[in-house]
């Protein structure tokens, strides 16, 4: 073996390579590091053999252990169903009223309902079920289609204007757009409607005329007294809760353009136990009748 040249300044051996008179010091990687590196190479080869690793034209190498993250998920879902076990069975067979009377079932249903609400309902109704303009607040006691347990269950199952044959259906006509009422009449009835819930009328508004227009056009659904009709999903106009706002512009807008939102039907998307849990959860938020 050739004798190594030692660099005077650093005391380190050189590799013997020279460029323009500059010599390269020989400072190899630490031996332990090199061995760890080799070990990782060996490890990766074993890993390829044991676990799914290489993509093939159609599919991939499956490995000797038969590991599959999809199978793991399936196993976890099965485990979850086993874990829910008895209570889930009890929930599926109990009536809605029985669930609310049984503290253990109620707690279980509320927990499951809360999770399902967060996943499915929160995008429109909000995480706390407080709703938004056009999306009802489910915490209060003002219900368009009824706030009893069966009514809520019905709404969750089949939705509103959802296209489901069992869905709740109604339509607020576009009185202004379709030319049923003139511009002045719309203003008059809007003032009258606001006065139903004790709000100030537009100065100089003829409430008497408004009342007559209301009786002729609106009372069919909203009732003579404006208290609405949950059978038809007609809102109560005398309380302080307005789905799309109670200011004059909002009321004029809905008289002019009509319309109504859509709530999807959840039957078929969620299993019956989850639907029941959701009904119980919404009912026990506070507004349930």
């Amino acid at each position, binding site marked *: 073996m050739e004798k190594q040249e030692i660099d005077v300044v650093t005391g380190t051996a050189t590799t013997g390579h020279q460029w323009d008179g500059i010599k390269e010091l020989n400072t190899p990687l630490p031996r332990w590091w090199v061995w760890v590196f080799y070990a990782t190479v060996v490890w990766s080869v074993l890993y390829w053999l044991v676990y799914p690793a290489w993509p093939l034209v159609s599919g991939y190498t499956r490995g000797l252990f038969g590991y599959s993250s999809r199978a793991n998920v399936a196993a976890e879902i099965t485990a979850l169903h086993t874990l829910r076990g008895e209570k889930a069975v009890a929930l599926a067979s109990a009536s809605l009223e029985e669930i*609310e009377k049984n503290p253990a079932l109620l707690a279980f249903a509320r927990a499951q309902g809360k999770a399902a609400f967060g996943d499915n309902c929160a995008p429109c109704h909000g995480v706390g079920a407080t709703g938004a303009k056009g999306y009802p607040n489910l915490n209060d006691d003002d219900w368009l289609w009824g706030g009893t347990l069966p009514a809520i269950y019905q709404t969750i199952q089949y939705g509103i204007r959802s296209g489901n044959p069992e869905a709740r259906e109604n339509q607020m006509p576009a009185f202004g757009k379709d030319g049923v009422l003139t511009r002045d009449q719309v203003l008059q009835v809007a003032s009258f409607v606001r006065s139903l819930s004790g709000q100030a009328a537009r100065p100089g508004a003829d409430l008497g005329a408004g009342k007559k227009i209301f009786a002729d056009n609106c009372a069919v659904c909203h009732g003579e007294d404006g208290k609405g009709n949950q059978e038809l999903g007609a809102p109560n106009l005398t309380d302080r809760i307005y789905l799309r706002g109670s200011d004059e512009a909002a009321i004029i807008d809905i008289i002019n353009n009509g319309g109504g939102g859509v709530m999807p039907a959840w039957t078929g998307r969620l299993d019956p136990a989850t639907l029941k849990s959701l009904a119980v959860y919404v009912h026990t938020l506070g507004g349930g009748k």
Partner: protein
Amino acid sequence: MNKPVDPTTLEIPDAPLYASAKKVYPKSVHGTFRNIKWGLMAFCLGVYYLLPFVRWDRGPGSPSQAVLVDFPNRRFYFFFIELWPQEVYYFTGLLVIAAMMLFLTNAIGGRIWCGYWCPQTVWTDLYLAVERLIEGDRRERMRKAKSKLTPRRIGEITAKHAIWLFIAWWTGGAWVLYFADAPTLVKELATFEAPTAAYIAIAILTFTTYTLAGHMREQVCIYMCPWPRIQAALTDEWALNVTYRYDRGEPRMPVPQAKELRAKGLPSGDCINCRQCVAACPTGVDIREGAQLGCIQCGLCIDACDAMMTKVGRAPRLIAYDTEVNIKRRLEGLPPIYRFIRGRTLIYVGIIAITGLIMLYSLASRSLLGINVLHDRNPLFVALSDGSVRNAYTVRFLNKRPELRSIALTVAGVPHPTVHVIGEEQADRTIVAVGPDQTREVRVLVTVPPGAKLDKSTPVTFTARDVGSGETVTESEHFIAQ
């Protein structure tokens, strides 16, 4: 700021800092302290192994084990005391008292804990007794350690480790009995039906016991345990410690030489340098070098020395429990004095007494009824159609009694509140049933009628009252409006 040190002034030792452990072969001794240690060993091991089997009747539905850590149900039972997880702070008090007891005994009688009570000492003593029974005393063991393996020797080694492992396994076995009904668990363990965690815990405890008491022994005290370091800072010249009375022992010399010198009226020490104290020491230290980290003050050297002194016809207790002060006084020809009531002992006793009283008081006066209230975060409040305002709360009742209780819930602080517990009939006074030794969580709606003047946030008080006993607990929350 760090002061830079000139590299040339640093001393670098030539020898490596690592010293391999010297194996200790403690000699068997007989005497007062050996007997005390046998007695305490029997007591400690007896309590440890048998306590899980002690029964304590708590009525139906509650476990009947006197001492039980019930993890699945999150309860701790100690005879008449039952603690819930939120009361674990009592253990803080116990730890304070334990630490102060350690300091107090140390200030009075040295390392009494190390020498007599510490599990490491007790189990090591037991393992040494087994070793001695099978392999013989110090000399024989040292000889056998060097001799070649014979079938008989292999038999001895096998027997020793088998018994050690058996004791270790039993130690682990007793440990898990504190965490489940002992008789049931014993049956399950025997039929291999016990939870996996039990077997794992037994395996771990078997391993640690076998390793610490069989193989590491004094190494634990010298290298692993923090107490010798702390103890050295806490002892003082008034504390009784196992002490070599150098005032009497020095200069050391053989008996004939001492006889000669004494005949001439010259000074001679009582220590005959027989090294029996070193041979008897379970940590292999020489007590004549004074108090030291390795000395656990078990008193076995006192017994060894006393036996020797009696043999040569001299007074016993050349090594004895003594104080630094008294040795100095004897050297000056003064009578010994003892002072156990000192500043530090008074402080320790004071802390023990205060902590103990606080714990007793809080234990005796603690409520066996509890209420926790959590305001809904979203929405903070709900405006109803008639203009009334409602807040929702999650309320948890805690019933720490072993019977079903009816709890009346009332809310005060806002005008005319109506309280509705979801799942219960609405009434003026809402009654909630809470099962024995259980908690119950309910959703509570509090509504204030329209027209009431409400601030943005009003403090309200939730009161839970046991209808039967009248026991009452309250919790503060807020009612949010606007």
